């Protein structure tokens, strides 16, 4: 399973685009990269998942370079409600039993 490394914390202001980069140097060939968001007192919530290149949904974009050793979660025009912890995970490969490794995540603080 891929061990991931991401910044412990980030600050931003409302309306800005936020990019959170995650390193996963030993990601396996069949592993996907998945990002979760967690608010206080709630369980993690799926944001986006990708394998390579770019994936976009109504919430975020995920950029994965060709070597797949890193990925960048992009949140457009953040608001105060985007203040949360963001986790980058490598896993979901065919050999994975579901044992996701979360790490400490990135605490994003959005300021007015």
């Amino acid at each position, binding site marked *: 399973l891929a061990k991931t490394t991401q910044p412990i914390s980030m600050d931003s202001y409302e309306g800005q685009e936020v990019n959170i980069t995650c390193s996963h140097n030993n990601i396996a060939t069949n592993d996907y990269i998945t990002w979760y968001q967690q608010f206080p*007192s709630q*369980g*993690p919530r799926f944001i986006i*998942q990708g394998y390579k290149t770019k994936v976009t949904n109504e919430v975020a974009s995920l950029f994965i370079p060709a070597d797949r050793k890193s990925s960048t979660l992009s949140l457009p025009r953040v608001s105060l409600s985007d203040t949360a912890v963001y986790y980058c995970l490598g896993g979901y490969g065919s050999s994975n039993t*579901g*044992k*996701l490794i979360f790490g400490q995540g990135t605490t994003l603080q959005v300021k007015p």
Partner: protein
Amino acid sequence: GAGVSQSPRYKVAKRGQDVALRCDPISGHVSLFWYQQALGQGPEFLTYFQNEAQLDKSGLPSDRFFAERPEGSVSTLKIQRTQQEDSAVYLCASSPRGVGNTIYFGEGSWLTVV
């Protein structure tokens, strides 16, 4: 539709007491997971079920922890003789099929051992 439901939401147990935490996964979801989350940390894997089969229990911290899913739907995480270090949020998650699908988390059961 309903999400993953966990109960109790909050539990205070005296040290040495046994506790049972219940998880109702999303209807029809084959896979079920338990995670433990200490304050300020990311969730840590405890165990994984596919239907009623417990395929991975490598994350259970000691033999005081036991999980079951006898009919392949509802699951119970039991902690015997609770210790203060067991204080954490216990998260249950489920996914539609086997590995390779998005997993959906419940709100968690907050356990405080005093």
